[in-house]
Every structure is written in structure tokens, then in C-alpha cells.
């Protein structure tokens, strides 16, 4: 099977969906002529032209709101936030409009919209460009939130997101964009709302999403090699809808769980996951639920310290050893 980058997988998903459906178009800052600030949309403007790949001014509330309006009329905009941190200037459009318009119209209006972009720290760009708002987004019924960790998942989930009839807030990672993964050439879709067991194991479950999945897989290798602990790694992939079944099955199998995310801990995604496990699998637990999140401070600029702020193999290992 050919190997392609996470970035290329997304690019391929856009190409395929643009060709499949004339209502699909890409919009965002620098997505067209400049080829994308992170080159995720590279070559698409040349290939599909001004109608399908549109450069927007630096005006997130304006063009995201415009995309909401266009989606209400049946178009399928795929809008890029150069950083998901910029969602905050478009928050009114994303939450008051995209998330609620279907409900407030009594189901008369759909909003088939994808808002995508990188939502990660770890690149020494300071706090304003390092937010991970998946927890905040997922707090709003009406939107879907997902965060793939691999190229294979990114492509299959992006294609599903574009075809979805509700707004999907699709988080990516600049750290993961260059990672190579096997991706089949033939078309496939990955339904939103399904977690994936990335590594099977018997002793402890690590449940993660986004970049934390990759760190957790490395920690799992280390724990097996150095401590003979058989670690299972579950990738949530989708935050809302949340695949409780896969989470609970893993916990019931291993009886121990460490939750890992690059989100900040307070009301993070894993607070919801922990509550679910405690409520629905308490009797299967042989140890308290442990969490590893980004250290609870605004994202620091300084490189060596930021490396420590985001969950590391060492911190994950330490938490696993506390309960195994």
C-alpha cells in the first residue's frame, strides 16, 4: 500500500469530494493562490479554479458566517481556519449560528459545513496560536467534532465530514501533517462517531485523541519493552458523537485506564470520558482513572518548556506505572 502524508491525505479527500459534488468548495485565508499556509490545499486552486477554491480575506467571522449562510442554501463549504485558535474571532458564527440554526428553525434548515484547521500546541508559537478547542466545541449539541491522528483516518473522516448534513468542526495538527501512513488508493469512508483501537493490549487502556494518540503509541512500545506491560491504545477519532461502546469495551477488558489529551485538563474532553467510564464501567475498574493533559497554564513559548507542557512519553509512562 502506498504511503502518503496526513497533509496529502486531506488534499486527496478535498480533490475527490470537489470532483464528486459540484456544491463542495474550499474557502479560507491563503488556501488558493498561496497553496495553503500549511500546504494542505496545495495545487487545488490551479486544478479547480476560483469557483471551487477561494481565498478569503483575514476576516474569520465574515467568511465563516458567509459559509453558514451558503450552507443553509444547500452548498457544502469546507472552510479553513489557518489555526483553530482563530475560531474565537468567529465564535458567534460557529456557535450561535452554525450549531443552533437547525434547532431554532425546528429542523427546517440544515448547515452542511466543515470548519477545519490545526488545533495543536507544540510548535513554539505562543498561546494565541496553540489552542485546542475541541472540548469547547463539543459542548454544543448540534455540531460534530473530530480529530484524526493518522493519514488514513484523516482522509476517510474528511470525506464523511464533507458529506455530513450538520456542521463538522474538524481538527488537525501541524505536528502530524508531515507524518507518513499507509493509505489505500481506492475510495473509502470512515463514519464519524467511531473510535479505533490503534494497538491491542490486555493490561491497561490508554485512551487518546489527536497528537496524543501518537505519543501514547510510543509510550505503549516503551512500556511493553521496558516494563512488560501490554498496553491497548484507543483513538477516539471523534469527540462528538463519542463512541462510548469502544471506550467501555476496552476498559472492561483491561480494567485500568489512562486518559491522554493535549487539551488542558479543566473540563477537557477526558473529563467527559472519565465521567462516562465512572458511570458505566465502575465495577470493572481495578484502579482509579488517571489523566495526562497539557500542563494547566497558557501555552508557553519557550521550546524546552513547551515540550514538557504537552503530554510526553515520560508522563504517560509514569501514570501507567502508578496503576499497573
Amino acid at each position, binding site marked *: 500500500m502506498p504511503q502518503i502524508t496526513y497533509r496529502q491525505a486531506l488534499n486527496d479527500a478535498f480533490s475527490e469530494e470537489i470532483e464528486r459534488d459540484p456544491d463542495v*468548495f474550499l474557502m479560507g485565508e491563503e488556501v488558493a493562490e498561496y497553496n495553503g499556509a500549511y500546504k494542505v490545499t496545495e495545487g487545488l486552486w490551479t486544478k479547480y479554479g476560483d*469557483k471551487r477554491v477561494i481565498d*478569503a*480575506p483575514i*476576516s474569520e*467571522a*465574515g*467568511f*465563516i*458566517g*458567509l*459559509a*453558514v*449562510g*451558503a*450552507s*443553509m*442554501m*444547500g*452548498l457544502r463549504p469546507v472552510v479553513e481556519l489557518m489555526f483553530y485558535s482563530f475560531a474565537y474571532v468567529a465564535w*458567534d*458564527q460557529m456557535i*450561535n*449560528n452554525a450549531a443552533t*440554526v*437547525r*434547532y*431554532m*428553525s*425546528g*429542523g*427546517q*434548515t*440544515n448547515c452542511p459545513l466543515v470548519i477545519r484547521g490545526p488545533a495543536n500546541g507544540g510548535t513554539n508559537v505562543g498561546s494565541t496560536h496553540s489552542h485546542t478547542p475541541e472540548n469547547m466545541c463539543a459542548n454544543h*449539541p*448540534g455540531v*460534530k467534532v473530530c480529530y484524526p491522528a493518522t493519514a488514513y483516518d484523516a482522509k476517510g473522516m474528511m470525506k464523511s465530514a464533507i458529506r*455530513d*448534513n*450538520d456542521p463538522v468542526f474538524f481538527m488537525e495538527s501541524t505536528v502530524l501533517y508531515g507524518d507518513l501512513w499507509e493509505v489505500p488508493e481506492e475510495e473509502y469512508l470512515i*463514519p*464519524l*462517531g467511531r473510535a479505533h483501537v490503534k494497538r491491542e493490549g490486555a493490561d491497561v487502556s490508554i485512551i487518546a485523541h489527536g497528537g496524543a494518540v501518537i505519543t501514547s503509541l510510543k509510550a505503549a512500545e516503551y512500556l511493553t519493552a521496558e516494563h512488560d506491560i501490554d498496553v491497548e491504545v484507543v483513538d477516539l477519532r471523534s469527540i*462528538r*458523537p*463519542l*463512541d*462510548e*461502546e469502544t471506550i467501555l469495551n476496552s476498559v472492561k477488558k483491561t480494567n485500568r485506564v489512562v486518559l491522554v489529551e493535549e487539551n488542558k485538563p479543566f473540563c477537557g474532553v477526558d473529563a*467527559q470520558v472519565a465521567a*462516562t467510564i465512572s458511570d458505566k464501567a465502575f465495577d470493572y475498574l481495578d484502579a482509579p482513572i488517571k489523566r495526562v493533559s497539557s500542563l494547566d497554564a497558557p501555552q508557553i513559548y519557550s521550546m524546552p518548556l513547551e515540550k514538557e507542557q504537552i503530554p510526553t512519553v515520560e508522563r504517560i509512562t509514569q501514570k501507567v506505572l502508578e496503576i499497573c
Partner: protein
Amino acid sequence: MSKKKEFTGEKREVMSPPARDKSHAKAEINASMTKEDKVKILTDMVRIRRFEQAALQQYQKGKMGGFLHLYIGQEATAVGTISLCGEHDHVITAYRDHGHALSVGMTMNECMAELFGKFTGCSKGKGGSMHYFAPDKNFWGGHGIVGGQTPLGAGLAFALKYKELTGCCLCYLGDGAINQGAFHESLNLASLWDLPVIYIIENNGYSMGTSQRRSSAHPPEGLAPRAEGYNMEWDMVNGEDIYETRAKTQVAIERAHQESRPTLLEIATYRYYGHSIADANHQKYRTKEEIEKYKKLHDPIEVWKETLFEEKVITEEEAKSIDQAAKEEAASSVEFAEQSPFPPKEEIFTDIYWEVDNNTEAGQTGRHFFND
């Protein structure tokens, strides 16, 4: 020299509308009106007023909660502009939306029932006064956040252009919304991308309880010239006059249809009630004298009625029977709302996700909601 001026609470000025220019009656779009067209305009305005008066009564009786932003006094704006809409012309507005809803052809029953929070309401009781919708009538809401609908209006126009349809979007906002960032971003996008959208500022003089003078910096002519900064055409309209409203809006619609260019219109109007019914101070930030002056001299329904009498389009008797019919229709909508059921409890979880409502495989997983 300091330009700083202390606010001293000086005597409030009494607002006045611009002078009426009767020559607009001769504009082609008005000269071609039939008797029926003219009577329909009156009927639609009277229906809005009678509907809202009935709604106000019911609000005061405690039949509904929340906010009720009345349109009374501004009727000519929605009715006059929407009377020009064709097959591919679309409407979106803010929270003072009852007038636009009735103008696009929504029924008093579905509108009143929505206020009551009933299942028969236009949004099944999920939206309330500020969130009426009727996409089947090209009406896209009813939006609660000041200025929040303005990018959506650009988006509706964008979709028309994308689909290569000859149409436009009338996007209404209040004078208070012109200082929101989203509005400026929308004007920029509309002009930059040649979108067929007409932004209509319904200027009733007060951004909630703050007068225009105390809330907006603008050129001496008014608010609409701000459009010049975005290389956009603009115009000012006396909103008590149906002929002027239609004539000037028609110019903007033709610009949208033929050149795919946006326009910013400022329509001078006046609301008789407060910002919402919860606004107990509406006689403090403006004078009683001002309110009375508008009711007496500038009421859009009275002005139009006089025009129709002068033109001998209708008699006083006919005008009375239009009013009587609207009153009865409003009373009957109250009856309808009273008798309608509230939404069943399971309705809390419908109309959130398409796939859940449509019972698809993914929608049946039970993974969408997180309850105890």
C-alpha cells in the same frame, strides 16, 4: 484644544424623519402597481400591527416568556421592500422579525403559536419570537445576536451567485448593528466578491436605549455613507413612505440582479414601543413628544391609507373592513395558539442532528447526546 465633551444629560432632541418626496409615486415600479397590489400593501401592514398588538396583550397576560421585540411603527419597511421580491430573492433579518415573517407569507397562526412556545409554531416552539424561519418562503430567520445575521446574508447571496441564479438577498439589520465587526466584515466580502446582497439598516434611531448620536460616529448625511469605505452604493430612504421605499429598494434589487453588486440602504423609521417589551425605560431615553409626533404625523399605515384615499383606490369603509379582518385574524391566531399543544418532551432531542432525525445507521448509535 480638547474635543472631549462631557455628557451632561441635556434636553433630548426630538427626532424627525427626512422630508417626503412624493415624486417616487411616479417611479415605474410604483406606477405599474395594480389596485390589488396597493391594497395588499395596506393589508399586510395592518396585519402586522394587529398581530403584534394581540401578541403584546398575550405577553402581558403571561402567555409567553422571553423577549418580544415589536415592529409596530416600522411596518412599511418590511412590507414595502418584500413586496418587490421574486422567485430567487431571499430574506434574512434580526430578532425584530415578526413583520418580515408575515410579509413573506407566514401565517399569523404559526407565528403566534411560536410565541406561545407551542408545537404548531413555525419553529415547533424551539425558536421563539426572535427565531422565526420559513425557508420554503425564502425566509432564513430571525436571528438573535445583533449583527450576527449579516455574514449569513452575504452567504445566501453567495449561494445564489454560485448557483448562477438571478436573485438577491435582502438582509435587514437595526441601526445598533452597524457598529458590530461582523457587519463590516460582511460589507467588505459583499463588495469584494460582487455579491447580490442588499443590507437594509432599519434606522429607528435607537440602538436599544442608546440614541444614534450617542452610539455611532458617521458622516453628516447618516449611517449609509459608511458604504463608501467599501466601494459600495448606498441610499437613504424615508421609511414612512411605501412609494419611496419601493422605488429606492428596486434600484438596489436591479443592481443586484443585473450587476451582482451589493447596496447599503438606510431606511429611516420609528418604533413606538421599547426595544423589547421588557424595556421599561423607552420613554426615558426619548421624549413622549417624539413618540406622539411619529404616531400622529409619520405613521406608515396612516400615510399609506391617506395616499390610497387620495388616489381613490379604497374608501374609508374598505380600510375599516381590512382593519377589522386583521383584528379577527389576530384574535383567531391567539385562539389557535391557546389550543395548540406544547411540544412533547421527546422533541427536546429532535432537530439537532440530521442523521438522528432521519434515523440513519449512524443516527441510531445513541452517541450524540450526553445525559444522566
